[in-house]
């Protein structure tokens, strides 16, 4: 499934890297501990988090993640948006809390690995 379809289905606000939404998603990973994401997420995963610090872009870039969705309508820091644009990491925001968002993603066919 492509990020663009997920954006449309779940009504996500895209904050950065609009040009890269045709990227495919291999699965999802949800965690707010960045060391854990570094250790356990997989390439092509869509990452669900509430952390808004610019290091989320660094982690996504290092692990080759498909994109990041921030939950609860959290607004990313300015540096985070700029870095995501530079590094070409799609950065989206959902108004939903993490539990609801992950459930919706699962129903769309985005699995856990």
């Amino acid at each position, binding site marked *: 499934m492509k990020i663009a379809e997920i954006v449309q289905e779940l009504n996500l606000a895209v904050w950065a890297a609009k040009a890269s939404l045709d990227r495919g998603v291999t699965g999802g990973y949800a965690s707010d*501990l960045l060391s854990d994401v*570094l250790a356990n997420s997989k390439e092509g995963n869509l990452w669900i988090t509430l952390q808004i610090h610019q290091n989320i872009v660094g982690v996504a870039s290092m692990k080759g993640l498909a994109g990041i969705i921030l939950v609860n309508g959290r607004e990313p820091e300015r540096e985070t948006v700029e870095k995501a644009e530079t590094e070409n990491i799609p950065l989206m925001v959902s108004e939903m809390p993490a539990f609801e968002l992950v459930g919706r993603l699962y129903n769309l066919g985005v699995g856990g690995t």
Partner: protein
Amino acid sequence: MRKVRADLHLHTCLSPCADNQMQATAIVEQARKVGLDMIAICDHNSAENVAAVAKAGQRAGLAVIGGMEVTSSEEVHILALFHTEADLMYMQDMVYENLPGENSEEAFGTQVIIDEWNNVVGKNSRLLIGATTLTVEQIVDSIHRWAGLAIASHVDRERFSLIGQLGFIPEGLDLDALEVSKPCSAGREYDYPVVTSSDAHFLDDIGRRSTCFMIETVSLGEIRKALRRELGRRIVGN
């Protein structure tokens, strides 16, 4: 110059998660007993027991540095150590202005404010165990605005540590040092000095980990020089 053994991260009974026996005279006695020359008091998001321990330390000839352990919005713990009480109070004001919530004693524990003789003089009702709305960068900048030292707490742990929460140390973050909770390789790949501290929440933990500095006088200014390896001052072991 002389070798000074310092434990720069102790809690008192003000921290909800610390033992209630962590009181002014007991902390100082235990620190002396285990051979420390210097301690720093760093309760969670508050410095209201610093004066009590500092006065008790003065009586016993133990140097006590005033500080606090500030929680960032990313849930990273940063130690803030200051030269003067006035600077420490500026930092505390800023933290209080950005620290939402009220403590629940049942859920998190008591937050007791004491005097230098351990008399209870009040209770802090703020949610000290909680996180401020300040980012790591804002906290480090504020500490330096008031001439303090900014040290990332226990970077070898997963929870509440800079590396655990944020995966790696943000580029250009102007820290004075990293703290580890035991001798280990964590943080050594970065270009920061590393200190070892106990993060004591119980009396028996005081001095269990410490850092030895080669410095001229027992002061925070000298510790700063040692971290920067200035004028022969340096860290000589843990």
